């Protein structure tokens, strides 16, 4: 690997000290509290029509400014999904609708001077509902007689196979090679169905937005969002106003994980401010965040593997049923990853594959983007099926992977025919084996004290941005005395993108890290960026930063050339100075900066946009050691080894912590995190009391290493890391639990009850 000075180092985050000393930096800290308090009245029914709604009494509560119902909002449908236009997600929302589609859907918006007044008004709104039959089971949703979106104004902008008259948000089938023919020739076929539940992103800062009118009569939206430019479009669609009337900025964000890639709270206070001209703020409670936002898509995935008795995987057949809930946010796009990322992992000997899916509407909370974005679900299914194959063939699950895993240089038909240009998956496996001592550990050993110790393995891939779609941009500007200002619209949600992008700029400009200041995410002034999602920031925006810095260097050399009366070819850029190649003369960066501000005609500011035609996957291997208690069914994590190939690691600390954080979320998904509904569609897990995310007692020991590859299309050889790290815990833990108990758990989470019932069933 190249010898880097700033990149590939454990540099402290730029905002670290402000965060650890508790400075007021988040939305609710930096916006005034003397604004209108906005709250949403949520539907108590999974499916209902509002026959009558009376707000007159509620409006009389002292301090109430306005109450809005479906009668007051624009009739133009939109999607809340933060995606590039034209969005693949259907336009199926109104700010408030007469038809309510899940328990939690918006019935009315109340704005008032105090929280107390608003709470009182909420209780005084009288609604007569016509309760309708809901579709609650996603397996029966397609072609159900009950339609979630019967309305004529429903619209799909992209050809994703959507049909609201069939409760279909998307459908597709793709095939490569002779699937049935190859399957028929296989010695062994493993076929199973796996079920992953909705999971809450559960970032610690709930959804929150402040809105105000600026002196130019424009709506200024300040909120915790990953996608300032998409929010601008979504609000313009929802409010039916010109985009030029909206400005979106973000302060520090208290976590996103994809949740804030959807416009969950922005619309309501924006509507209030637009109507009243008054500043407004909406802070979702934890309960609202758990019941009226957009968690991970629940999926049921059927995997069929055809292999030889030597464990050569020849054919894969995957069908995914995805539950998008009441609205289609990210429905058509998440599902694709469940097949692409899982099938492509086993590319080595693959002769044929089939991948089909249906994404259906139901009357439950809408799903949305969550770290891993469908790959997580698909990889749980595929990796579990491969482990089942290994056990059926009585083979080492590591060896079966080594035989079949995708290799560097291979073309992946299941991954848009992209070439696997940088891939250290094989080395990740070798290293993980070493660290874990896989070859010397039995799959399971009964400790004789009521506990069984066992191991499990899984691997994963993701992508780096959306190829041909995502746009990342950077503006870099030379300032007085030679420091630089970097302006971006990628949103740092805690992962440290402000820092890593500054690291890249410093590396390129051969200066100190402290010589770069970063300003982020203002739709008025930042260069266009699709936003922080799809694991795109390091790879796509990072490349834009690199290119912008190169161009700025050229411009500075031009100024130096004029000052030294020579051509730029005779000059070399050396960070703090620019010298003649022969060493005879030089000029300092400070002089160039000074010159740029006096009688200069060469702009010392450059903006570059970047988009990539490819989306090189990062890879990883996870190995887990657990203990299962035979008396209680409880699973205890002992050790988790993760080896990741994200190309060049830009910040070694931040990549490590992101990996550990992703593993912890994956552990939660595997063992505890569940979203369940009662018979009328109300969510049980509406707080942290019921929705259990892992605590520090639950995660065991995690050991993370990197096996770098060099991705030539990425900045400094980098690929992404944000999402892939959540993908291995579920299948690895399910594998270890099988090794301990002899029972495959094909539905997540694998709670102690399920483990216990499995053990008991096995014994009988």
């Amino acid at each position, binding site marked *: 690997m190249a010898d880097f000075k700033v990149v590939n180092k454990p540099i402290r985050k730029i905002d*670290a000290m402000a965060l650890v*000393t*508790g400075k007021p*930096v988040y939305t609710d800290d930096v916006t005034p509290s003397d604004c209108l308090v906005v709250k949403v009245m949520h539907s108590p029914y999974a499916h209902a029509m509002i026959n009558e709604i009376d707000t007159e009494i509620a409006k009389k509560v002292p301090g109430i400014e306005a109450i809005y119902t479906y009668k007051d909002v624009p009739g133009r449908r939109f999607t809340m999904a933060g995606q590039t236009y034209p969005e693949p997600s259907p336009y199926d929302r109104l700010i408030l609708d007469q038809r309510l589609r899940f328990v939690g859907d918006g019935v009315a918006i109340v704005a008032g001077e105090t929280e107390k007044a608003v709470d009182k008004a909420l209780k005084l709104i009288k609604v007569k509902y016509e309760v309708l039959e809901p579709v609650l089971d996603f397996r029966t949703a397609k072609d159900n007689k009950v339609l979630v979106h019967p309305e004529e104004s429903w619209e799909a902008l992209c050809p994703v196979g959507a049909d609201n008259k069939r409760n279909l948000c998307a459908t597709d089938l793709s095939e490569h090679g002779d699937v049935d023919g190859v399957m028929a020739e296989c010695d062994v076929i493993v076929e199973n169905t796996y079920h992953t539940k909705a999971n809450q992103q559960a970032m*610690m800062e709930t959804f929150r937005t402040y809105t105000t009118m600026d002196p130019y009569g424009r709506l200024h939206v300040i909120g915790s969002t990953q996608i300032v430019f998409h929010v601008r479009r979504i609000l313009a669609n929802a409010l039916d106003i010109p985009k030029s009337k909206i400005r979106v900025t973000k302060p520090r964000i*208290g976590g996103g994980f994809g949740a804030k890639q959807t416009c969950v709270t922005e619309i309501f206070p924006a509507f209030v401010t637009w109507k009243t001209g008054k500043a407004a703020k909406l802070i979702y409670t934890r309960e609202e965040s758990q019941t009226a936002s957009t968690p991970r898509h629940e999926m049921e995935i059927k995997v069929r593997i055809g292999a030889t008795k030597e464990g050569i995987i020849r054919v894969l057949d995957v069908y995914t049923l995805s539950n998008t809930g009441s609205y289609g946010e990210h429905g058509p796009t998440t599902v694709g990853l469940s097949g692409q990322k899982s099938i492509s992992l086993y590319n080595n000997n693959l002769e044929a594959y089939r991948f089909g899916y249906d994404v259906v509407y139901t009357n439950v909370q809408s799903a949305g983007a969550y770290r891993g974005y469908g790959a997580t679900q698909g990889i749980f299914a595929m990796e579990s099926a491969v482990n089942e194959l290994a056990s059926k063939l009585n083979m080492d699950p590591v060896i079966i992977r080594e035989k079949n895993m995708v290799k560097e240089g291979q073309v992946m038909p299941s991954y848009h025919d992209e070439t696997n240009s940088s891939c250290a998956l094989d080395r990740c496996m070798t290293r993980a084996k070493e660290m874990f001592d896989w070859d010397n550990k039995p799959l399971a050993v009964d400790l004789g004290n009521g506990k069984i110790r066992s191991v499990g393995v899984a691997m994963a891939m993701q992508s780096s941005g959306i190829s041909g779609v995502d746009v990342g941009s950077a503006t870099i500007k030379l300032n007085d005395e030679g420091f630089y200002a970097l302006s971006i619209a990628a949103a740092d949600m*805690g992962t440290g993108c402000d820092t890593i992008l500054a690291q890249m700029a410093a590396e390129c400009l051969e200066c100190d890290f402290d010589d770069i200041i970063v300003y982020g995410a203002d739709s008025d002034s930042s260069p266009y960026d699709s936003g922080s999602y799809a694991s795109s920031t390091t790879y796509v925006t990072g490349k834009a930063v690199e290119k912008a810095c190169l161009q700025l260097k050229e411009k500075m050399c031009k100024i130096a050339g004029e000052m030294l009366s020579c051509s730029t070819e005779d000059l070399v850029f050396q960070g703090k100075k620019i010298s003649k190649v022969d060493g005879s003369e030089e000029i300092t960066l400070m002089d160039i900066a000074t010159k740029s501000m006096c009688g200069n005609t060469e702009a010392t500011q450059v903006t570059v946009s970047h988009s990539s035609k490819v989306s090189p996957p990062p890879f990883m291997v996870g190995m887990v050691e657990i203990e299962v208690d035979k008396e209680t069914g409880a699973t205890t994590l002992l050790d988790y080894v993760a080896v990741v190939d994200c190309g060049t690691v830009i910040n070694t600390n931040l990549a490590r*912590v992101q990996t550990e954080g992703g593993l912890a979320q994956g552990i939660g998904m595997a063992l505890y995190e569940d979203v369940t509904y009662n018979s009328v569609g109300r969510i049980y897990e509406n*707080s942290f009391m019921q929705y259990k995310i892992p605590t520090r007692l639950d*995660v065991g020991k995690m050991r993370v290493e990197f096996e770098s590859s060099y991705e030539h299309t990425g900045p400094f050889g980098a690929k992404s890391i944000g999402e892939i790290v959540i993908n291995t815990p579920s299948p690895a833990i399910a594998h270890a639990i099988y090794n301990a108990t002899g029972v495959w758990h094909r539905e997540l989470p694998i709670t102690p009850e399920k483990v216990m019932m499995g053990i008991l069933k096995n014994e009988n």
Partner: protein
Amino acid sequence: MQIKLWLNGKMVTEDVAADMLLIDFLRAHGCFSVKRGCETANCGLCTVFVEDKPVLSCSMLVARVDGKKITTLEGLQEEAEDFGAFIADQGAEQCGFCNPGLIMNAIAMFRENPNPTDEEIIQYLAGNLCRCSGYEGQLRGIKAFLSFKKEKGGVC
């Protein structure tokens, strides 16, 4: 009702509603380090000291702290910086939203038990949730801070 308390060393006398929560009172007084991550006493983000003992301010009425001494991270800036730097050096303050509550509890732990084992650290801080870091980096930071203090021969 009128209450009187000491907030980060300053006396505050005020009329408050009987149902006002301590967290809302503190934020209204500019103590923005105090965060609300849940409403159910599950996340630990709202941790502050009442008479030097950590409590969850989302689950305590301000009326109950009448006459008491309240400390938030705003009142412990030096300690927050000293210790926080070690968390920062691990990159374990990701979104940072959980950090004030964590640091309050960690400071309480250092005072109670200047030499905790890994197990004791994890136990003591179990009530402080973090969704970003996976906890390992926080543990590394805490241990690095403790050994730094030990080397210096000081007590925390």
